[in-house]
């Protein structure tokens, strides 16, 4: 097994140096399953995806298949999607509604609470003394929700969800609780499996506004009316200084625009005016309900963020994604679009359309992210000795204590800065090398 000393040599976050081994090593990936994914709060589903009793949604926690199911009393339960007999999936639908889950191998069946309720010819095979109560589906030990978002953890002793959000809570509130009705998901989950380590995607959403100018230049150029290009494509009067970055010791991070600037909307192109007008209204609502601090970093200004370890979001366009690990060099994206429940139908439709134009495997922007993630994995897959000796440069803004940003504890930083990425790997290293969840500063 990989030693703590080796892991520390791979992640020298204080100096902004990261080894490619953490993206390509099979050992690191395997340990990560237990130590990071086994001990984090992981996003499972939103309330609006499973409204009625029996509604289920299939997803993953790390590499483990799970399903989350609405119970008849309105509560929610989640289990490993693995039969206790030989281990195959008992639910082979991606989503839907069911009263029970019957395994197609030998027919063991489980109710929506995960209890083993049926076995073909049970008395003739296992005898009358068989104790079914011991052989239900393996439950996800802890389940909590925040603003309709259900998170699960296999770690019984994990701190409560709200504590684990830390100072990031204000960002969660400003994009999920902007309007009194909260948000709902547009139906459907867009899934894409691609080359690349999940951390490359998660860290990018945590703190990397920097890549947009190069990676997404073709999106800005083609989809933005020329008269808006200056103010809407990050090339306005504020330049890079219009950006702020926010990072926390929990490893969460976000990048956003100065709310006072006119650069706030990345959602560009035709039909965006409908969304813009709505976001203006949302901003007024946030200022009234949640106060000025929230309004200054409200959803319309947030470009990107990651809730450690693998839930990423965009404030505008309004999209969310989870990066499921599928091996050191492979990940699967689950992507959703969220809209304000209180928004009129035509606004919801435009929010959906604008989000889909830019994000998802077909998105004018995200197509090129997929290319970059795959290209990084492409270089590492060959396992070159020299390539793996590179210590990657995560040093942007190192030593800079501008704004409220402290190198070790995070905070807010004006301008471009890789502080959120350094804090993401700080948390990751703590979880990989220490007992517990690495929450403490």
């Amino acid at each position, binding site marked *: 097994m990989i030693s703590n000393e080796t892991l520390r040599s791979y992640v020298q976050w204080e100096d902004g140096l990261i080894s490619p081994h953490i993206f390509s090593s099979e050992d690191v990936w395997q340990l990560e399953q237990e130590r990071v994914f086994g001990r984090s709060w992981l996003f499972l589903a939103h309330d609006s995806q499973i409204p009625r009793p029996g509604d289920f949604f299939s997803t993953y926690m790390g590499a483990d298949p799970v399903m989350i199911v609405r119970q008849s009393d309105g509560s929610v339960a989640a289990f490993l999607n693995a039969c206790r007999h030989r281990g195959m999936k008992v639910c082979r639908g991606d989503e839907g509604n069911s009263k029970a889950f019957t395994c197609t191998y030998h027919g063991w069946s489980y109710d929506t609470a995960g209890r083993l309720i049926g076995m073909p010819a049970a008395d003739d095979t296992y005898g009358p003394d068989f104790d079914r109560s011991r052989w239900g589906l393996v439950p996800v030990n802890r389940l909590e929700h925040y603003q309709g978002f259900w998170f699960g953890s296999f770690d019984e002793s994990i701190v409560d969800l709200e504590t684990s959000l830390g100072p990031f809570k204000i960002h969660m509130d400003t994009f999920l609780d902007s309007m009194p009705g909260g948000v709902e998901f547009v*139906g459907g989950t*867009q899934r*894409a499996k691609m080359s690349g380590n999940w951390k490359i995607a998660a860290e990018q959403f945590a703190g990397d506004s920097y890549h947009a100018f190069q990676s997404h230049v073709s999106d800005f150029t*083609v989809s933005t009316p020329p008269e808006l290009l200056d103010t809407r494509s990050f090339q306005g009067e504020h330049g890079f200084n219009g950006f702020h970055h926010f990072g926390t010791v929990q490893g969460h991070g976000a990048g956003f625009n100065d709310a006072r600037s006119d650069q706030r909307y990345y959602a560009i192109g035709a039909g965006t005016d409908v969304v813009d007008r709505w976001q203006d209204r949302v901003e007024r609502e946030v200022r009234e309900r949640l106060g000025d601090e929230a309004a200054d970093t409200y959803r319309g200004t947030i470009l990107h963020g990651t809730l450690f370890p693998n839930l990423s979001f965009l404030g505008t366009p309004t999209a969310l994604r989870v990066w499921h690990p599928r091996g050191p060099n492979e990940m699967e994206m689950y992507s*959703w679009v969220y809209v304000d429940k209180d928004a009129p139908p035509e606004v919801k439709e435009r929010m959906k359309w604008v989000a889909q134009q830019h994000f*998802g495997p077909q998105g004018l922007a995200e197509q090129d992210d997929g290319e970059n993630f795959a290209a990084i994995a492409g270089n590492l897959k060959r396992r070159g000795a020299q390539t793996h000796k590179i210590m990657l440069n995560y040093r942007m803004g190192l030593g800079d204590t501008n704004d409220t940003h402290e190198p070790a504890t995070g905070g807010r930083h004006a301008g471009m800065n890789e502080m959120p990425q350094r804090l993401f790997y700080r948390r990751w290293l703590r979880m990989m090398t220490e007992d517990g969840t690495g929450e403490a500063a």
Partner: protein
Amino acid sequence: MTAMTPTTGPAALPASLFVDSAVRAEIEQFLYFEVELLDDRRFSEWLSLCADDIRYWMPMRRNRLTRDRDKENSGPDELSHLNETRQSLGWRVAQLESNMHWSEAPPSRTRHLVTNVRVAATETPDEYAVRSNFLCYRNRLEEDVDIWAGERGDVLRRVGVRQWQVVRRTILLDQSVVLSPNLSVLF
């Protein structure tokens, strides 16, 4: 081998498939020409074959349990992979031609195969409902390979002598999880 007694005989082909063979030939040539433009990277010319009122839609495919099998494809209120207008197709074409669209620069080598063309008349005299199967092979950079198979349901409109445009296109990609780093090709 056991003797089989056919109880129903072969299914009758729908009468709607028997359009004039000259029309069918013209439509087949149009479909081949269209993908030739894509594979030759003549994207702007391809765009000129899309009607101003085109709807270009690729729903998602999902694994559903038996009772809601009819929801295998995502509906109009749900997310889709593509939901394009002529304007947004124009953005995609401009992006492909920008030389700064890194998932297609350096350009991919694509080969679109179009088969199983079925043509049916519609109530509008110059519009035909056309279904075809496709296989698109993409090879890029050194060894990156993607293969997409699926079906397209089109409405094609005759707009002049040997001139056609795509008015509707629904693309059913035969994947529930997109198995490529992106969908940067047109179908």
